[in-house]
């Protein structure tokens, strides 16, 4: 099958969580989906799926119930995309993605509220979707179990000592031990992914278990940096719990994190399972619309190609994902030059204080959409009837401060695909 030989129902541009979710949602509604984007941004993921933990941002109010948070958001920031999605749709959407990821080898603990996961920085992270490999961490903290954290010599981004020092006042039974990873003698710098793949072999896994077992003592749980297997994390995690006899959990770490790679891998598998056709290393360099059909120009090493679709979902992300680009004058949407709502001048983009209470204004810039998630110009007019925008490219949200990145991505993808499939119903497109 070649992507240029057919008219696609939907072309999804961008392969972060939003693009991946949109493609999976659309494909599971029976639409033919061409999905363009390399998905490498997913490696920055922690594996945790946030829905909403903080609102209002300026008060740093942390919510245990994300649905309640969204309700509050609807009152305070009615045009925030999360508010537009609403709690019900959000719940359906996030659960559906968690299920799809689970089938693709990255299971999540069924969830109704936010959980507080201890991070490698010694902070507690309020989040909704927790991979099963991490859930016991939240439980251990909640119940103040005596807990052993494992530090691995050479893993530079992770210090269990730091976690113990930082969290110890709130978690008295927390302690740490430093171990030498098997066959790492003489290696100065270890990388999490390499340890994760090594743990997928019986010999290395057994060796680590043998090292850790005598250290457990009175601990009721054991925490590792997130290195328990890459594509086989469920099996590796289970093997550790079985062998150590206590709950074992992973601690989310700095990127490139193993759960980030897992997420990327699992999304790829889930998209393939849903029947999404992926063009991984192509870049969309142009989109043209006529009445019913969008023509996208794809560029890869073999040159330019044109593909056609009845609908386009833009999920290109913000600055890191190149969905938005800022030059010295203003923020632009580089692919279609869509209208970007933004602060008046660069003077107002950022606060002079990095951790400013209310966040940075530029993080709330982005695309404006109508009720069907279609980008509009400055005056509210739709750009093209079946061009949709989802995820962090949307304006009037601050996912970093609100701790709502995945929810924003998945929820808007769900809502946009729903609106789109309604449209397809009315034009008989499918």
């Amino acid at each position, binding site marked *: 099958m070649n992507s240029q030989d057919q008219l696609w129902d939907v072309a999804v541009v961008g392969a972060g969580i939003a693009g991946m979710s949109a493609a999976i949602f659309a494909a599971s509604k029976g639409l033919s989906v061409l999905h363009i984007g390399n998905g490498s941004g997913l490696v*920055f993921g922690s594996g945790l799926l946030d829905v909403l933990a903080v609102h209002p941002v300026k008060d740093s109010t942390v919510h245990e119930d994300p649905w309640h948070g969204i309700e509050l958001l609807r009152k305070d920031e009615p045009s925030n995309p999360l508010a537009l999605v609403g709690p019900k749709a959000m719940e359906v959407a996030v659960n559906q993605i968690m299920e799809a990821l689970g089938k693709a080898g990255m299971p999540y603990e069924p969830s109704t509220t936010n959980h507080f996961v201890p991070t490698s*920085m010694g*902070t507690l992270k309020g989040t909704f979707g927790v991979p099963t490999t991490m859930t016991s961490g939240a439980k251990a903290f909640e119940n103040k179990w005596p807990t052993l954290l494992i530090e691995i010599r050479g893993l530079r981004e992770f*210090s269990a000592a730091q976690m113990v020092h930082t969290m110890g006042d709130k978690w008295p039974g927390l302690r740490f031990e430093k171990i030498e990873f098997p066959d790492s003698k003489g290696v100065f710098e270890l990388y999490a992914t390499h340890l994760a793949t090594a743990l997928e072999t019986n010999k290395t896994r057994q060796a680590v278990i043998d090292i850790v077992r005598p250290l457990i003592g009175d601990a009721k749980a054991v925490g590792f940096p997130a290195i328990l297997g890459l594509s086989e994390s469920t099996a590796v995690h289970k093997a550790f719990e079985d062998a150590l006899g206590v709950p074992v959990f992973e601690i989310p770490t700095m990127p490139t994190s193993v759960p980030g790679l897992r997420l990327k891998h699992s999304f790829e598998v889930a998209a393939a399972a849903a029947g999404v056709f992926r063009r991984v290393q192509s870049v969309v360099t142009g989109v043209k619309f006529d009445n019913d059909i969008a023509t996208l120009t794809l560029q890869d090493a073999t040159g330019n190609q044109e593909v056609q679709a009845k609908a386009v979902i833009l999920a290109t992300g913000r600055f*890191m994902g190149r969905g938005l680009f800022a030059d*010295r004058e203003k923020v632009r949407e580089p692919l279609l030059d869509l209208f970007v709502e933004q602060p008046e001048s660069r003077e107002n983009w950022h606060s002079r204080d*990095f951790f400013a209470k209310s966040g940075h204004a530029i993080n709330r810039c982005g695309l404006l959409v109508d009720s069907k998630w279609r980008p509009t110009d400055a005056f509210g007019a739709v750009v093209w009837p079946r061009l949709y925008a989802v995820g962090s490219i949307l304006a009037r949200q601050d996912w970093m401060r609100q701790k709502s990145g995945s929810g924003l991505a998945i929820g808007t993808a769900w809502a946009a695909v729903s609106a789109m499939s309604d449209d397809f119903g009315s034009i008989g497109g499918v």
Partner: protein
Amino acid sequence: METQVLIIGGGATGTSIMRDLALRGVDCILVEQDDLNAGASGRNHGLLHSGARYVSNDHDAAVECRIEGDILKRLAGQTIQATGGYFVAVQGDDENFIADFPGHCDRAGISWKKIDLNEAFANEPAISRKAIAVYEVPDASIDPFRLSLESVAHAKALGCRLLRRSQVVAFKREGNRITSTTVRDRVTGEEREIVADQIINAAGAWAKIVAGLANIHIDMLYSKGTLLITHNRLAHRAINRLRKPSNADILMPGGTVSIIGTTSVKIDNLDDVYPSIAEVDQIVEESSAMVPDLATVRYIRAYAGVRPLVGASGGDGRSVSRGFALLGHEESGLQNFATITGGKLTTCRLMAEKAADLVCERLGVTTPCVTTSVPLPSAYEGRWTEPGHAPKAWMRSANEDDPLICECEMVSGAVIRNLYNQLVKAGDNPTFTDIGLRSRVGKGACQGAFCAVRAAAHLYQHGAFQGRKGLDQIVDFFDERWGGQHGVLWGEQLAQAELMEALHCGLFGEELK
């Protein structure tokens, strides 16, 4: 505490005075309200002037630079890279100014060579193809941090003392003498008295404020200059615009990066010295006439310094002489207080010599100045500020206890530990910012987002950090680094900043702590 001389201000001048006095056998204490080179000494191009920059409008300054530059090259060579410099005129620049340049250089004794344009383009591809004349002069780059760090290290080895984060808050005056100086520790808030025979006010832009504490008025003008650091090194040499000194006309290589500046903005208040968006834009726009890449290159930082200009009463800061001022304050009835301010990084040794001469005369010390003949010894703590030194050192000596912590600038764990421990030994409670000043940590593209995390983990792993210090330090360090990033957040650097926020706020929620 008692000493013969109290020096106020740990910039290039203050630290040079400290070393000068120490070499003459005079006991001294240096107090610095922040850290070494926190003012203009650390916020400049790092250009060791050949003098050519001044030949057209200030012959004496040009000659002074040439002489002092030669002395520093000879005695403090480790802080200097003999990059050479080009003076480049582009279409539209003043033809008469260009024509007069060689003659002026000859009169100041500065060697010059006219460079064929094609040769210049070959040697420095970054130069605009609209260049119409290129001259080569013996400019060089100097690392002001290393200079100050090693001057202090030398002076300390000779018995003098340094008090960082110590702000002068009051002077006690009895008759024609200041009998005691009150110094406050800015971390702990504790105050202490220092009794000194002589006091030198070398506080740079802050000299007016310090003198004010002694009820002395200095007529001083503040001129803010902003500079930008590029992600890559764009040129091998110093590239100067061959025109009347103006904005954004010097591009300096700084090891692995380039520095472009400056501006000149008159300001009244020293509390608010930061690079404004307007200045940043002005530099990017104006400098690209000389080096077109500067319009599109990735910038990683912006910073601003304040030039203290003495003796003027208004007008444009740039037209005021850059020559320094040494004030004995006898007219105000004080016998043991002197102020030295103004001047240039290139002439810091000379300024120190003059200031030291004055206090030595007052102290009755007859030992002559020896800084024209005694080399500046190289010191461990000064070595790490040079870009590109850390990766080589690490590659030579890598071992299991020495993983890379700062990947951008390739600073290893051992360097961070050693610098940290050195400061601890000196009685400090060091911060990441202190380590950043003494090394390249946090100076690369990621601006601390990754390395601060690793540095904290490393120091915990080695037992150096206790309690919540790691997280506190990470947060403080980001705040400090953010000040420099703030002005250049567009393009790639904005994406990098977004990643930093996504990690530290989005994932770790550090703003909620």
